[in-house]
């Protein structure tokens, strides 16, 4: 059962050295307000688990935590969008743990689904072989990766009800899997609606997975934020 709290209260669930999953995809569909709050709170030595870095060019969304030097380890599949993060990795200020994107997501799914490992052919014949254990199944070689879990997941959904039932709009990205794989799950939503307002078929993440609800920007505000960002970066 979920509890609605403020972003200030929610950020206290994250401590120095916490591992934190952050939903979204290269800056799209991320929990904007919670990331700002983490930046403001100045929590340090975080292990951030995110499918990629922040929005292209850096300094936006997760990129703020990079500029603040709040991250000591980055678990991901791609950091190419944030030059500041790449610099910190090269300078060994940030430790990097890479997996191929599909493997990264599947490792989180395994972490949330009580599975012991991910067995995938992806990465065979590449340097990725060194990041995993090799096993043979039916005479074919595969890579065995361990599951990923986090202390806290900070995810994004369009709306939710007070029970924590989440409805996504558009690409839900990594939020649905991350919701399953952390000890504490905080969701940032555009809108909170009454119990029963979301049809049972439209619940993308049931409340069983959600601990805390935080009210983010309204959908219209968030739309404005992205329109401005996309226009400023010549994408719209």
């Amino acid at each position: 059962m979920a509890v609605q709290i403020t972003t200030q209260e929610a950020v206290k669930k994250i401590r120095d050295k916490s591992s934190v999953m952050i939903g979204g995809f290269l800056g799209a569909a991320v929990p904007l307000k919670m990331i700002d709050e983490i930046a403001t709170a100045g929590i340090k030595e975080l292990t951030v688990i995110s499918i990629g870095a922040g929005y292209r060019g850096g300094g936006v969304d997760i990129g703020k935590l990079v500029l603040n030097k709040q991250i000591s380890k980055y678990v991901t599949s791609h950091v190419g969008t944030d030059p500041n993060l790449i610099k910190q990795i090269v300078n060994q200020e940030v430790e990097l743990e890479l997996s191929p994107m599909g493997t990264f997501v599947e490792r989180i799914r395994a972490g949330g689904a009580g599975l012991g490992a991910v067995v995938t052919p992806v990465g065979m014949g590449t340097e990725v072989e060194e990041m995993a254990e090799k096993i043979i199944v039916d005479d074919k070689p595969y890579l065995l990766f361990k599951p990923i879990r986090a202390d806290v997941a900070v995810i994004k959904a369009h709306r939710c009800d007070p029970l924590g039932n989440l409805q996504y709009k558009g690409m839900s990205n990594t939020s649905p899997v991350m919701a399953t794989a952390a000890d504490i799950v905080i969701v940032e939503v555009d809108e909170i609606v009454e119990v029963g307002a979301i049809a049972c078929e439209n619940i993308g993440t049931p409340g069983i997975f959600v601990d805390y609800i935080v009210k983010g920007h309204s959908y219209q505000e968030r739309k404005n934020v992205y329109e401005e960002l996309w226009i400023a970066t010549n994408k719209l």
Partner: protein
Amino acid sequence: MSRDYIAKRIAKEFRDGMYVNLGIGIPTESANYIPAGTEVFLQTENGGLMFGPKPERGESDPDLANAGAEPITMLPGGAVFDVATSFAMIRGGHIDMTVVGALEVDQAGSIASWKIPGKLLTGMGGAMDLLYGCKRVIVAMTHTDKHGNSKIRKRCTLPLTAAAVVDMIITDKAVFRVAEDGLYLEELAAAVTVAEIERLTEATIMNIGEWQESEMS
């Protein structure tokens, strides 16, 4: 100019009803040249099928973006889903074709595109899954690097993104088919000579002799 040429040439590979994932850059531009009467369903690995062109200003949706976090629209019949579903689709062999850029490709169909030791550090993103899982892999790139060195090698010198997966190479100068036994020249771009291809291609071209003959006849 050569960019357009490559994008147009990629578009000839589209077949009606194909599900395709296009890499950023030139591959994505090829969608502008999909032949009339051919319906191609575009997949984006962050979780969408049948997306359309970018929206007008004021019409964008913060929850509809491509794998480069750029705004897109959804076409009627389009579907959205999460990334676990998306990569199950990719790795599970459900996508008919992917077109990607590369730093190097070799005659065994191996491809290097994600890392230059000491220079380029970005992570592999979804490239390894796409190259492993998609039924047909086309590499689209300039024939040579900015120093004029061949990007089509006997053997890739950079860290691989995937081993022995490439089916076709489309460059600004030629088109190659990658077969079990090696690289076959299939087409030359306008005004490109076989001699030039031979000079600019480090890899062994299995049918280079036949090509010379057919040109001379």
